[in-house]
């Protein structure tokens, strides 16, 4: 935004005259109506979970964990997709380039890219919103410390996909449009388009396949986790709490697809390093799996009202199998579900 503002100052000394048309973009019947509807929605219907005070307190501050200190550019390229990222960079360059030439009133560029809207303010707003969206998420995931953001960087990086996709559209347009104007041979245009588009499709598909399907065995195990989750979804009332094991269960994150009955559900026994006293986090999810027969765990079961525990077969299951306090209600070669006997007495 600052860069764009400077561009305006340099090239359009009389920009103040266009302030009115600039304001019109933001202050008009449509935006005011939308704003009022959103505010009414937040006040009367539901405040989004990310706007409540505890969520804000959790998300704001210096990065507190290694997973929140930012991703490298290479990580970001890989999570956004190399093809999309490459063309989004071309899109950024193109938008800056085109803004500059439009402000300079370059007719050739306007003709080549068939730009009919010539109001510099409109071009600037369109450019700055898209670039601002991309750059802000890029900074949030690459340099969260600068912005005092304490959220898992990988999670923020997922949202880079959207502005990157919009910018990649501009990038592809930047390359194809001169051909469309100058070359009348449609076969050639199709070839140019295919040369850009096919690597994108291949890159996307191979990303998908590499993310999971490359390890056949892992995929097979995940399907068993799916089946166990589906079983609980069909069998267990919504009020009953569920605890899953993140350490050994394969594809346990997908359990949320079936059993996310609240923001923090199902509960999860996390990696051991997460329970380091320095992190000052609850330890019940660890104790209920590791020492289910202990007094500590018993208190945890009472506090959390956990009734079902999903574990990987053979991993921390022995103590449950030896106990008369747990029933084994589901069994496959990979996944076992235990039920805490008398769990209803806690309620």
């Amino acid at each position, binding site marked *: 935004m600052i860069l764009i503002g400077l561009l305006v100052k340099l090239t359009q000394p009389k920009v103040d005259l266009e302030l009115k048309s600039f304001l019109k973009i933001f202050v008009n019947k449509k935006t005011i109506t939308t704003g009022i509807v959103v505010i009414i929605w937040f006040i009367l219907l539901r405040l989004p979970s990310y706007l409540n005070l505890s969520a804000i307190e959790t998300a704001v501050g210096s990065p507190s964990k290694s997973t929140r200190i930012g991703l490298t550019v290479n990580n970001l390229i890989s999570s956004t997709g190399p093809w999309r990222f490459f063309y989004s960079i071309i899109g950024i360059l193109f938008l800056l380039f085109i803004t500059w030439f439009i402000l300079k009133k370059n007719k050739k560029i306007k003709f080549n890219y068939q730009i009919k809207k010539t109001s510099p303010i409109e071009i600037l707003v369109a450019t700055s919103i898209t670039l601002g969206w991309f750059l802000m998420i890029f900074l949030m995931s690459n340099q969260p410390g600068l912005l005092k953001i304490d959220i898992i960087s990988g999670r923020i990086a997922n949202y880079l996909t959207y502005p990157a996709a919009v910018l990649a559209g501009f990038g592809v347009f930047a390359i194809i449009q001169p051909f469309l104007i100058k070359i009348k041979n449609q076969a050639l245009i199709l070839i140019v388009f295919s040369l850009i588009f096919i690597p994108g*499709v291949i890159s996307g598909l191979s990303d998908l396949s590499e993310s999971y399907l490359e390890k056949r065995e892992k995929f097979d195990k995940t399907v068993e986790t799916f089946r166990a989750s589906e079983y609980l979804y069909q069998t267990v009332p919504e009020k009953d709490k569920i605890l899953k094991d993140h350490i050994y269960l394969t594809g346990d994150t997908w359990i949320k697809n079936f059993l996310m009955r609240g923001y923090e559900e199902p509960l999860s026994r996390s990696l051991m390093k997460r329970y380091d006293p320095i992190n000052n986090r609850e330890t019940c999810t660890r104790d209920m799996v590791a020492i289910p027969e202990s007094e500590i765990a018993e208190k945890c079961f009472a506090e959390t009202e956990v009734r079902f525990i999903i574990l990987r077969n053979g991993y921390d299951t022995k103590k449950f199998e030896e106990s008369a306090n747990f029933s084994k209600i589901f069994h496959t070669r990979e996944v076992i579900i235990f*039920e805490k006997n008398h769990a209803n007495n806690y309620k």
Partner: protein
Amino acid sequence: MQITINKNLAILISLIFLFSAMYFLYWKGETDLKRASEKFTVLAFENASLDCNKNSLKFFIENNLPREKEYEILILINQEKVASHSNFKIPARTTRFIELESVLLDKICQEQANFKFEAEVKNKEIKENIYKFIN
């Protein structure tokens, strides 16, 4: 040589390419899921209730394998065998529910207030069990 392609044909070719890629992805995912599902057997209770009644003690064997399988089923109360089925055949990709005979169920529920009900299923490839502490 000048190659000319009609604009609509060009769009059609592009769409065919796009949908072929998407359909391939869909087909690959479905096939992988099907293959993965065919590799395991599920043994589970029909519901999570711990009361002594017909539905609570009803369990099922889900044979996801692409062929018929034969199982040996043992039903134990407090680790003592009360019923069994040998050569229990389940066709490919089929689920079979198993429940205690009414007479036996009534007897168990009347005679015992707390007990461990266990179902054990085995064949050459698997040996799995599930159990409930009924009260």
